[in-house]
């Protein structure tokens, strides 16, 4: 399974998760895990998603997510899981 890590960082506001999840659902991307915290008013979320059956290429998805983030006022990043696995697991 190809997993992608989506991180969302920015000032907390209403509907961030809703908007991100709507995008993912529309593009047939399955969410495997979500963790989220708020530190000093800053919203910090990480999602692990399965992009295997997604409708878009990785590049397009990353671009559209980044654009969506700009609209909401947060920074959204998509990265393949391997970079974190490699760095933090032996």
């Amino acid at each position, binding site marked *: 399974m190809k997993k992608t890590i989506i*991180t969302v960082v920015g000032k907390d506001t209403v509907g961030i998760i809703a908007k991100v999840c709507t995008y993912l659902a529309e593009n047939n991307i399955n969410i495997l895990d979500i*963790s989220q915290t708020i530190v000093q008013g800053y919203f910090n979320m990480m999602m692990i998603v399965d992009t295997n059956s997604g409708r878009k290429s990785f590049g397009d998805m990353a671009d559209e997510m980044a654009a969506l983030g700009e609209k909401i006022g947060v920074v959204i990043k998509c990265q393949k899981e391997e970079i974190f696995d490699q*760095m933090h697991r032996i």
Partner: protein
Amino acid sequence: MINLYEVTETNKMIEKENLDVRTITLGISLLDCIDSDLQALNRKIYEKIYNAAKDLVKTGEEISREFGIPIVNKRISVTPIALVGGAACRTKEDFASIAKTLDRAAHEVGVNFIGGYSALVSKGMTKADELLIRSIPLALSSTERVCSSVNLGSTRTGINMDGVKLMGEIIKSTAEYTREQDSLGCAKLVVFCNAPDDNPFMAGAFHGVTETDKVINVGVSGPGVVKTALEKVRGENFEVLCETIKKTAFKVTRVGQLVAKEASRMLDVPFGIVDLSLAPTPAVGDSVADILCEMGLEYAGAPGTTAALALLNDQVKKGGVMASSYVGGLSGAFIPVSEDQGMIDAVRAGALSLEKLEAMTCVCSVGLDMIAIPGDTKSATISGIIADEMAIGMVNQKTTAVRVIPVIGKGVGETVEFGGLLGYAPIMPVNPFSCEAFVNRGGRIPAPIHSFKN
């Protein structure tokens, strides 16, 4: 499964601490391009490089996007041109025409540097080697992206002092040829002792003759990451300090290994090595000198600097070796002056001299790097500086190098601006006493004894 803390840590390294992959370098053998006809040779070289590297930049950008990690440079190294051009080149201009072909290929495929305008003369020079060396000033002044290197000595062969003398003159001449650009040509010219065959970093990258046809070598970086990690252990003892560097180096190198494997897969070119280097840039927070300061020195160059650098270099290797399946190249901390804001500050404060830099090169990779010296420095003096550095490499069985820039028309106290990753540098004073009679002796220094280590 990966957790939020780990993801945040990685992204903080990338976004705030300048973690990046410094270079993906594609090594290409040009041995099969050899031809006695110069035109045919140039055509074959261009075609081979173009075909091998046309997807390099695109692939680098794709990997960068997938993992969200910047890959700063995409580069090419080729077989030392003295070997490739020997059969076809009769004049300096002939060799320079190959440099122009390399430059054209580099522009076409979009890489910012191509290395390998090189000669390996650690014991002696063939006619072709000498001709190539003599063509360096012309080649570097008539191209933009070509880098040149010359190996002048090794632990097994000793030091070719005829080569050392000649290179002193060539460096000076290259400075003259490029005087309009503050002698920029010399920033693309480096001399080595014990030059590695698989170095991905410029200006010294070339594709050694022991290598396969094509190979991917990756250079990682991350002085900012190490510095930030050390901020958290201020005042702790050396055990804690060393462990912290080691763990950080491990993480940084793993990213390099991942990128190297991915590039190798996507380009269908074998993976060569990861070069475990802490390579600084002029950007704030991307400095090796700042790490030394974080360890407890007021400035790089203060007493204790050599010890601090030795432990940094060793821990980076210890952490990195386990993180990558193949390690090679230069692997260590780089201490260029113009490319490191902390080093520049140290020179300006009067804390760092050429002599202290020389001592530092005994314990780290690579050598006297990106040091601007007065334009009126004699070529014999430059040869003397080179000979000293080669001797350190030869005796200590390590790679050492010299990349000094005699800035024509400028003197001590003035500043020279190279731009981009090459940065800027205050011109440093050079010991004014002569070594001319020593350099002019000619011949070579024999290889050192390999037992009775003291």
